[in-house]
């Protein structure tokens, strides 16, 4: 049976029409390591250095996750990436009523500096690089990391890593916002300024398309909204008086690797080219490092199926291959069981092995941008770039991304795309193996269960901490934080650091800021 021709019309997964065959000529994409960097940011790419294998991981207590980190590093992982549980991301302590049922579930529970010390026990911070997925409370979790470095005797100048810190995509897609956009943007700019001065090797933001795509956007929307978020951050930093070449080299990006192989590679290539032009033509950056787009990639969680979960190993391998052929700087490969739960140790190991097989067995690392000059891929890359500029024009006309978010524009675009995709799947125009075709009986696989003892353990630690610490000092640092927040012109990082060092909890610090900044509530679109 010719299943492959069931799909009509011929489009990418994002709905872009695909021709039967592509012919030349196509524009010369230039050389890797040279502007506009379409073919890669380094002349030698993976011949010089492989991408960082950085598996996003976190669950249960800080002790549980610390053990998983030691395990992953022992298996050849080359960088850490912290997944925090929802209460931490939303600024609540584990013993807050809003945290009920969530403690340790979607990530690791971190309530105070004491938990962060446990999380990095036995992990010298000058020897590893760490990415932290934290947005609304990014200043707080970064401060905790900096305070752990102080305790380990590691100078901040030796620290390498990334805070996600991309609040715009929270309003657009991921929805773990706390404060309204304007004070949130100020906090982001504060981290740029602080990082430039004191933590020069740190990526102070990872401007993320991943979650935009997971929320249902097309590949083009992911690219355009993410790069335009980048523009918005630069505009805010310039308005705050920062110089472009002081902070732009520390901006980094994060994209999704979805299932449409060529469309994804085109997206990464177009991303580099568009960002180069933005930095040069719009912002007149002089330092060459300012206009180089470096990015992390994660394979698409939303493309995993709960049905026949072992098939996900194959999906992840192909998605990861597109990220590598697209020139990613670091990569997370999802585990086969992540449509069901957080990964077991076995599933996490297979995910890491998938990257190692691509790196060491397939040979794709041996030459740079092997698809360069392909009629099809260069055409797709050009279409992606053109579509991006069209979105930029619309967003400029709306007055920028904060204004567009307030009007619900990117949210509506993504919602429409998600619905269109779902209906195409339900009509059988898009086939998902094991879901709407090739269905078969299956036996359940073992999944990781997080029990409620995590919540009890965190609550006990919090109670003990609140008794043990110098509560007068906590009160004073929180008071100073609020005064600084009200003043509006002070960089908040030193004040957050003082709160963290006094063992104020994450929830207490967020409450203090909520009292000044207020909380964001989205209007329903």
């Amino acid at each position, binding site marked *: 049976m010719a299943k492959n021709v069931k799909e009509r019309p011929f489009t990418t997964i994002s709905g872009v029409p695909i021709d039967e065959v592509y012919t030349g000529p196509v524009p010369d994409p230039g050389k890797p390591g040279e502007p506009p960097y379409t073919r890669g940011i380094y002349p030698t790419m993976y011949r010089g250095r492989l991408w960082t294998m950085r598996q996003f991981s976190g669950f249960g207590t800080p002790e549980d996750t610390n053990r998983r980190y030691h395990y992953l590093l022992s298996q050849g992982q080359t960088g850490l990436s912290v997944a925090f549980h929802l209460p931490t991301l939303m600024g*609540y302590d584990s013993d807050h009523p*809003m945290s009920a049922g969530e403690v340790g579930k979607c990530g690791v529970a971190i309530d105070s500096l004491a938990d962060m010390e446990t999380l990095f026990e036995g992990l010298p911070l000058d020897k590893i690089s760490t990415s932290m997925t934290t947005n609304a409370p990014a200043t707080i979790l970064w401060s905790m990391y900096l305070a752990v470095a102080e305790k380990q005797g590691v100078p901040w100048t030796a620290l390498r890593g990334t805070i996600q810190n991309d609040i715009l995509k929270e309003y657009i897609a991921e929805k773990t916002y706390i404060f309204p956009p304007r004070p949130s943007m100020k906090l982001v700019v504060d981290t740029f300024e602080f990082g430039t001065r004191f933590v020069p090797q740190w990526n102070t933001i990872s401007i993320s398309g991943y979650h935009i795509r997971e929320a249902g956007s097309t590949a083009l929307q992911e690219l355009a909204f993410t790069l335009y978020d980048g523009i918005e951050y630069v505009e805010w930093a310039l308005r705050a008086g920062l110089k472009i070449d002081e902070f732009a080299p520390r901006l980094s990006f994060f994209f999704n690797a979805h299932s449409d192989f060529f469309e994804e590679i085109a997206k990464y290539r177009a991303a580099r080219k568009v960002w180069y032009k933005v930095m040069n033509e719009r912002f007149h950056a002089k330092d060459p490092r300012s206009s180089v787009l470096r990015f992390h990639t994660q394979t698409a969680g939303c493309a995993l199926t709960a049905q026949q979960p072992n098939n996900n190993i194959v999906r992840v391998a192909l998605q990861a291959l597109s990220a590598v052929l697209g020139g990613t700087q670091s990569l997370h490969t999802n585990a086969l069981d992540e449509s069901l739960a957080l990964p077991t140790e076995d599933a996490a190991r297979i995910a890491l092995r998938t990257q190692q097989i691509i790196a060491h067995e397939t040979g794709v690392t041996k030459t740079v941008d092997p698809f360069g000059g392909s009629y099809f891929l260069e055409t797709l890359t050009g279409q992606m770039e053109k579509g991006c500029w069209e979105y930029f024009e619309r967003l400029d006309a709306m007055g920028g991304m904060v204004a567009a978010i307030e009007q619900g524009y990117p949210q509506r675009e993504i919602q429409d795309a*998600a619905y269109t995709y779902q209906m195409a799947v339900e009509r059988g125009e898009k086939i998902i193996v094991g879901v709407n075709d090739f269905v078969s009986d299956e036996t359940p696989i073992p999944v990781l269960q997080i029990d409620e003892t995590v919540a009890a353990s965190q609550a006990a630690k919090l109670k003990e901490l609140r008794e043990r610490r110098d509560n007068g000092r906590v009160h004073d640092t929180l008071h100073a934080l609020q005064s600084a927040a009200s003043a509006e012109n002070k960089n908040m990082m030193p004040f957050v650091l003082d709160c963290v060092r006094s063992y104020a909890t994450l929830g207490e610090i967020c409450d203090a800021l909520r009292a000044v900044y207020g909380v964001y509530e989205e209007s329903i679109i």
Partner: protein
Amino acid sequence: MPERIRVLVAKPVLDGHDRGAKVIARAFRDAGFEVIYTGLRQTPEQVVNAALQEDVDVVGLSVLSGAHMTLCPRILELMKKEKLNDVLVIVGGIIPDPDIPKLKELGVSEIFQPGTSTADIIAYIRQHVRSNGQH
């Protein structure tokens, strides 16, 4: 002409994954249902209050964060207290197989796991609303 089926689509507490909830809400509207979407970060009390105020036939809970075994029992308990006994409760999201019988025992009519088509959920609601034998 029968009255339009009224459905509350709810996202309880911290979980912000709203792609599914929004797709479902739109599919329900296209199917002719009256849909009330709560928005994010609703406490169990707020969800039940909305169900009461809006006089809905169906409450659809969307949970992808793993907190369903805490949140669903709490919401069902509050619904019983408010005597919302003939309201159909369905749950969608990342719900592991072993939790399904436990949720059904508590009064959830059906659980829809990842990959379910919206058409199947709509058909289920049409079939079970108000005539659900469990209630």
